[in-house]
């Protein structure tokens, strides 16, 4: 059919089928299948390249992004056309592509947002509205809509509504004036007052009243809500913790809610908040403020949960609890109950401590909140029962898995004994093993005089040296000299103004779960809180050196200790703080994250695709499905044959030409496999120790159950029903393998002519721990490099290719690839540090697969 355009070809094929009946030409289907895969692969390579170039190691410009996206769009468009041909246009994937393309073009060419909504209830918030409702609201709505973790559901007042309010009250002009001539604290106060005196424009007011009515109908007339900020950046690395106002216990009445709304948006213009925004590259008024209104939980107890240890990045989940509302915990005002769990291999309580919990914040009947001393008998009592702690830990883990990153979670326990999740946001934590071996505090403590040693809690590790500056009132912050070590009795989110100047922060009280702690971690300012004695032990003006090591031990030494200060790695501003960088990188959000993970789940539809990667995955899966269906039609049920070998790979084989020596029967044994590439891969997988490090147990049922048990950590579906598929011919292999969240694709053409040959390897590994994911990818990439692969990696996607290779070489590489695929299944639990990567690489290359030796 040469010389006839593809589209025409497929039309003719369909016509042929209709005329001649269902005779499906498997070779044609396979040709279409390969065409889809090829365009998919090209598209994925562009995605990987974009991810790499926008990842922080390259300086890029908008020209690159536009060019790369044009290429990506062309490849995917091509793929969609071929996919439609293969699937007879059964899926509206073209619409999905248009939808996502529109979102990307909007971001790229910065058209004014067409979004006109003012109020959105959580149930109605879709992915595209994320920016308009702000990170906090979006996160909450995702949890409320998709996860079973008990989130109170409310509504968002959008960024568009905020714009309308500001315009209606003449504030946009006022702010623009400030930006051109400069501003002081008084000017900011003026803006805040203007907001407070301002009025909601009528359309917004009416819609807000309508939403209030709806909530009253649902919750009852005496219910209260909390009105919280949900600013644009609040779902990114930067939490703005404690910077913006939250108004609690607001009655469901029009005036009260309007006042609370104005209070929250006014908080965009406090000195501290403006400082933070400036650091991230926003001019005053540059950030817009969506707001969330959420039913108030009458909390008996509340607190915070972190799914990793923020100071060290280690895989430990911590929960802190105190009586009353959570504000006392996040403001760092109390010494809470704390619980620490080990996460691997399963959730297990490691430490439990009842805190002093001296004070508590409760709802006051008239609205608002009040602070009081905790009754004596309650102080020594734990706020949560063991069962409740365990339940909370399970939910926190579930949330982490859903968002696939460490989480900072706020929770509450209501009077009727129900646990609610109030908020969840990305937790900025140090990554463990980030810098390689550093020295421990103990090494230095012998030589230098420690003024404070291991008292209290470490919030952020690091090294700092400078003059002590004791801060007693908020005004003192203005006078902070550059490089000072800020020492204070209490911690405060106001300290954010000091971040550009301060080298370290040490306080007497406070907790690791406070807002100030979050900010110190975000800006990587070494800090220690709850020391109880810092203001006593350290003198104003004294030179000191603070050293917090990787294990969380610390000391504050008298004087400036050169030996320690030399260890400081220069951390100037990071690229992440650059507004332009983040803004440009934002388009990757529509491109690379993979949301569609489970092809058997209900959510595996074109409508649920949020990114280009999702579209590619969808088409790939459906293409494989199409091929399987065609094979089954072409040769009856016998076309899909289960591979029976000594290891439970779950592979089903489709032979498209001479791949098997004997095509009868519904199962295939190793000896029947004629496909040279397939044989090579299987040989590699069957190598002793590659699949299982223990001695091979001959009971097949044991294999299957142990394989399923290992995947139980992440699987929510019966793994044995998922079909791993190998499409083979004598010279060709296309194998897709899925184990838990590891997804392997191996595609190989292995003929006598080197110029036609290729080996293409794709690996996506996706358990929740980011550092382990990238170590696993690195290990695979390094091993593949030894075999001559050219590879690109981005996050947990690795693509590697080897072309123009002699057949013998290709087969050798396939053998190794088989062993590698088998081997990496075992690495889930063991890649704890960077040095493990090197160790396992050497072991693998030496043919030593034993991971327990």
């Amino acid at each position, binding site marked *: 059919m040469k010389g006839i355009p593809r589209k025409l070809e497929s039309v003719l094929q369909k016509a042929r089928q209709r005329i001649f009946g269902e005779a499906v030409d498997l070779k044609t289907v396979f040709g279409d299948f390969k065409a889809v895969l090829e365009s998919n692969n090209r598209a994925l390579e562009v995605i990987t390249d974009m991810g790499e*170039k926008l990842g922080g*190691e*390259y*300086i*890029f*410009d*908008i*020209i*690159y992004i536009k060019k790369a996206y044009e290429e990506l769009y062309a490849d995917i468009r091509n793929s969609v056309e071929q996919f439609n041909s293969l699937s007879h246009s059964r899926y509206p994937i073209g619409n999905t592509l248009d939808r996502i393309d529109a979102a990307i073009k909007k971001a790229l060419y910065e058209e004014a947002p067409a979004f006109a909504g003012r109020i959105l209830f959580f149930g109605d918030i879709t992915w595209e509205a994320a920016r308009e409702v702000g990170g906090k609201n979006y996160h909450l709505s995702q949890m409320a809509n998709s996860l079973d973790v008990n989130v109170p559901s409310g509504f968002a007042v959008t960024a568009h509504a905020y714009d309308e309010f500001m315009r209606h009250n003449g504030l946009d002009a006022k702010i623009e004036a400030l930006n051109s001539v400069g501003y002081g604290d008084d000017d900011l106060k003026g803006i805040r007052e203007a907001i407070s005196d301002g009025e909601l424009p009528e359309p917004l007011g009416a819609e807000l009243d309508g939403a209030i009515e709806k909530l009253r109908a649902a919750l009852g007339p005496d219910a209260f809500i909390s009105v919280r900020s949900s600013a644009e950046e609040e779902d990114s690395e930067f939490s703005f913790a404690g910077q913006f106002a939250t108004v609690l216990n607001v009655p469901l009445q029009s005036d009260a809610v309007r006042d609370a709304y104005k209070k929250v948006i006014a908080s965009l213009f406090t000195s501290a908040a403006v400082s933070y925004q400036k650091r991230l590259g926003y001019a005053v008024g540059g950030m817009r403020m969506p707001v969330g209104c959420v039913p108030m939980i009458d909390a008996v107890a509340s607190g915070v949960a972190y799914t990793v240890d923020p100071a060290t990045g280690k895989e430990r989940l911590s929960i802190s609890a105190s009586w009353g509302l959570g504000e006392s915990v996040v403001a760092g005002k109390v010494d809470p109950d704390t619980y620490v769990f080990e996460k691997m291999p399963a959730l297990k309580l490691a430490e439990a401590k009842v805190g002093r919990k001296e004070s508590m914040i409760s709802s006051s009947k008239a609205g608002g909140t009040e602070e009081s001393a905790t009754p004596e008998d309650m102080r020594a009592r734990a706020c949560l029962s063991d069962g409740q702690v365990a339940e909370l830990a399970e939910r926190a883990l579930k949330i982490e898995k859903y968002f696939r990153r460490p989480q900072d979670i706020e929770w509450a326990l209501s009077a009727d004994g129900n646990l609610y999740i109030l908020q969840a946001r990305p937790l900025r934590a140090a990554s463990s093993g980030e810098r390689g071996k550093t020295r421990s505090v103990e090494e230095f403590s012998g030589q230098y005089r420690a003024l404070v040693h291991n008292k209290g809690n470490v919030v952020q590790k690091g090294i700092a040296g400078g003059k002590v500056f004791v801060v007693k009132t908020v005004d003192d912050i203005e006078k902070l000299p550059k490089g000072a070590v800020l020492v204070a009795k209490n911690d405060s989110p106001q300290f954010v103004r000091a971040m550009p100047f301060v080298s370290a922060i040490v306080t007497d009280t406070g907790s690791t779960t406070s807002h100030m702690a979050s900010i110190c971690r975000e800006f990587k300012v070494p800090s220690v809180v709850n020391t109880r004695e810092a203001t006593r032990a350290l003198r104003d003006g004294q030179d000191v050196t603070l050293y917090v090591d990787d294990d969380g031990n610390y000391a504050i030494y008298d004087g400036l200790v050169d030996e320690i200060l030399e260890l400081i790695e*220069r951390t*100037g*501003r*990071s*690229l992440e703080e*650059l507004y*332009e*960088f983040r803004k*440009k990188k934002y388009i990757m959000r529509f491109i690379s994250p993979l949301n569609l993970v489970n092809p058997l789940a209900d959510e595996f539809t074109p409508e649920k695709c949020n990114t280009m990667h999702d579209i590619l995955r969808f088409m790939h899966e459906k293409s494989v499905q199409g091929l399987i269906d065609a094979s089954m039609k072409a040769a009856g049920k016998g076309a899909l044959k289960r591979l029976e070998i000594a290891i439970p790979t779950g592979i089903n084989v489709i032979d498209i030409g001479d791949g098997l020596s004997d095509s009868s029967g519904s199962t295939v044994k190793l000896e029947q496999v004629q496909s040279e590439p397939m044989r090579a891969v299987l040989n590699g997988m069957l190598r002793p120790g590659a699949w299982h490090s223990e001695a091979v147990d001959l009971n097949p049922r044991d294999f299957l159950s142990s394989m399923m048990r290992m995947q139980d950590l992440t699987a929510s579906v019966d793994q044995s029903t998922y079909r791993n598929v190998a499409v083979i011919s004598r010279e060709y292999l296309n194998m897709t393998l899925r184990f838990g969240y590891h997804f392997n694709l191996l595609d190989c053409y292995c003929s006598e002519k080197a110029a036609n040959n290729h080996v293409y390897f794709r690996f996506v590994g996706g358990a929740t721990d980011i550092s382990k994911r990238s170590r696993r990818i690195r290990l695979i990439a390094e091993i593949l490099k030894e075999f001559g692969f050219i590879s690109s990696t981005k996050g947990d996607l690795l693509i590697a290719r080897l072309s123009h290779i002699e057949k013998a070489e290709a087969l050798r590489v396939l053998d190794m690839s088989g062993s590698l695929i088998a081997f990496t299944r075992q690495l889930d639990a063991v890649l704890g540090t960077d040095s493990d990567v090197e160790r396992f690489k050497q072991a693998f290359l030496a043919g030593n697969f034993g991971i327990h030796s």
Partner: protein
Amino acid sequence: MSARIMIIDDEKIVGDMAKISLEDEGYAVETFLSAAPALERLKEEKFDVVVTDLKMKGIDGLEVLKVVKEQYPDTKVIMITAFANLDVAIEAIRGEVFDFFPKPIKIKEMKESIKRALEG
């Protein structure tokens, strides 16, 4: 005294990213969105390296190169461009830039190049 680096590129993000990365190495970095003010600045202060975009409105990279070579022979020039193609590369070599980078620029490579430029 730390080395002085000048960055000229009409896209803000390029200068900003370069500034952050190079300040990390301890250099003093100044960025300009166009060549005219940059050349004015060169009259006031000596810069060790000038990193300039090739294609810019008004005075372009090749002209910057010419001026620097004639008036500030001790200052090295590194050319960067989004439109790397063979002709431009030959032109640049003939024009004797110290180094040449197509965009996107790998930060590590740029740092190494600047390090070499400062040593030479």
